[in-house]
């Protein structure tokens, strides 16, 4: 069958305790597992074991990205497909990532590593799976994010990477940004009905631009920006904004290691039947409005700062 969802990002943390505090008290995740040098976290309204893995490290950035498949045999097919493209792969033993079955690790042309796997242990929704009272207590001013929504990765060979994901892993291209030469240089790709689970833009190999968490209401994004300011968390200069791409409401901020986070709200529904609907194109004078709708200007540090 196929890739079913973006499952998790395994990222690096300069100060593990500070990062844990950030992802629990600012983002609003819960801790679901610990091992030496690692903390596993999940959103309150997601049922798999984790969506973020923090790894103690001497630098910031990305370790790898986890995607789930919905048939155990998909690992064989993906392995054969990746090898045919000349990409390096290796098997990841069950349990190597806590709470998770066997995986297939693929090194993409962009320098990023995707770990495909079938099984995740279930932690369930925080309020339980039976007759849940859907309101959680003691959240310290943080209304929970519902799930990990997407990530923007920076790397080289984005076009080749996007092509591999479309042709071998059946990702769907929903929007793209074109350069002056008329060729696309940034790619928004999905395996679900949302606008993107992963996007690629040019940058140093294996870089992380941001990690986006979904919140259900724009009013909640506003309250979160207020809380970020109140807690003196570094936000992007524009504060609250809207992306022209997908028309979603957004705010960017940084974790203690400098990894960029995003809170996003928007119900853009991708018309997912492959190769039926052409991708949306952002080019030329439309690009600044596509990136930041109200401001229609892109500050240099937005694309240049990656971890």
């Amino acid at each position, binding site marked *: 069958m196929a890739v079913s969802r973006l499952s998790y990002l395994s990222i690096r943390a300069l100060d593990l305790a500070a990062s844990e505090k950030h992802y629990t008290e600012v983002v609003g995740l819960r801790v679901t597992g610990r091992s030496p040098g690692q903390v596993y976290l999940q959103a309150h309204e997601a049922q798999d074991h984790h969506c973020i893995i923090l790894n103690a490290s001497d630098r910031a950035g990305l370790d790898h990205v986890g995607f789930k498949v919905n048939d155990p045999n998909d690992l064989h097919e993906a392995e054969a497909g990746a090898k045919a493209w000349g990409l390096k792969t290796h098997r990841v033993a069950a349990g190597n990532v806590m709470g998770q079955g066997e995986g297939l690790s693929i090194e993409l042309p962009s320098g990023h590593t995707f770990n495909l796997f079938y099984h995740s242990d279930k932690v369930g929704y925080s309020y339980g799976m039976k*007759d849940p009272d859907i309101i959680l207590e003691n959240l310290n001013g943080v209304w929970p994010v519902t799930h990990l929504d997407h990530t923007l990765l920076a790397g080289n060979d984005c076009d080749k990477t996007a092509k591999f994901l479309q042709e071998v892993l059946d990702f769907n291209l929903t929007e793209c940004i074109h350069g002056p030469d008329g060729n696309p240089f940034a790619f928004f790709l999905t395996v679900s009905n949302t606008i993107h689970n992963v996007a690629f833009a040019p940058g140093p190999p294996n870089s992380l631009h941001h990690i986006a968490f*979904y919140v*259900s209401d724009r009013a909640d994004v506003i309250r979160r920006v207020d809380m970020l300011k109140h807690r003196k968390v570094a936000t992007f200069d524009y504060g609250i904004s809207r992306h022209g791409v997908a028309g979603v409401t957004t705010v960017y901020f940084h974790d203690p290691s400098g990894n960029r986070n995003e809170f996003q709200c928007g119900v853009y*529904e991708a018309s997912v039947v492959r190769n039926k609907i052409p991708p*949306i194109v952002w080019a030329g004078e439309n690009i600044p409005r*596509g990136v930041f709708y109200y401001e229609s200007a892109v500050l240099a540090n937005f694309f240049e700062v990656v971890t």
Partner: protein
Amino acid sequence: MALIHRGIHRLGYARIALKDSRLLKTREFYTHEMGLLETGIEPNRVMFRCWHEPYKFSFVVDQSDKPGLVEIGLHVRDDIDLDNFQRKLTAAGVAVDVAEADTELKGLGKSIVFDVPAGPRIRLFADIQQLGYVSGFEGPDWVAPKAIRGTAAPLNINHVAITSPDPERCSAFLADMLGFLTSEKIVDEKGKTISALLFRMAKNVGGQEIAIYPGTEVKLHHIAFTKEDSSDIMSDGYFLKSDGVELDLLGPLRQPYGNTFSVHFFDYCGVRLELCAVGRMTEVHPEIQPVVWSTSNLREALSYYDEALVPEEFFMPCL
């Protein structure tokens, strides 16, 4: 070797039939109150789409002496899927009819149609005419067209809810034959499913494309459309109210069953509609686990706020 997404990819459309004299009133309601875009008019039919949808229609109203839910249209990837489903359904003893492109509905490709036991008629198709996005494909603003601002102007069709004399049988068929998964369900004291929310999509206002409620016969309960968020639902509620539209239930409600925030109301012909936001983020994966509700908590499941809500009244179909 490559992975491939197979089967049902999205809810394509809901198609209902109303008695003839009502069609003009219906057109006025769906364009001026609901803010749908009219995309096709035939002597006995009118078609609509939502402004964020690139396809020709997501809602079809027929003129007919037999009012009711005609069918639910589901979009599959390609003809391979259509053939696979036809073979599988036929092997299971289900009567399947085939319609060539443009014969059943203008703009619809080849389709197969069948009746779900204790459930709705379903039509599967791989192709539907594309009108493109109203905001275009180059640098779109993704803002509702000015002509429909101030109306509900939903972004997409979200789900279709039906009543069934045997919800367990109906949901089992949809799961076994069409690959639907359950995001939430209600079970009685004996463990029997009396209601289920079924999905094939993973969308941000999610968790259901087909909702099944208990009832004496297969009827339409409501058709739901997607809104951005809860604040929209609140303003839609007072716009509709001020225009004299009949609101159902007790106004905007948080529904723990499905985790939605929504408002239900009736069109001029008594068809129940819903505008919804929030909902469950789901995953098309065999290991996904549903939320399970007990009938003893039914009222709380259906509305977090309204202690006066009567579940039996809530489950009453409309058409």
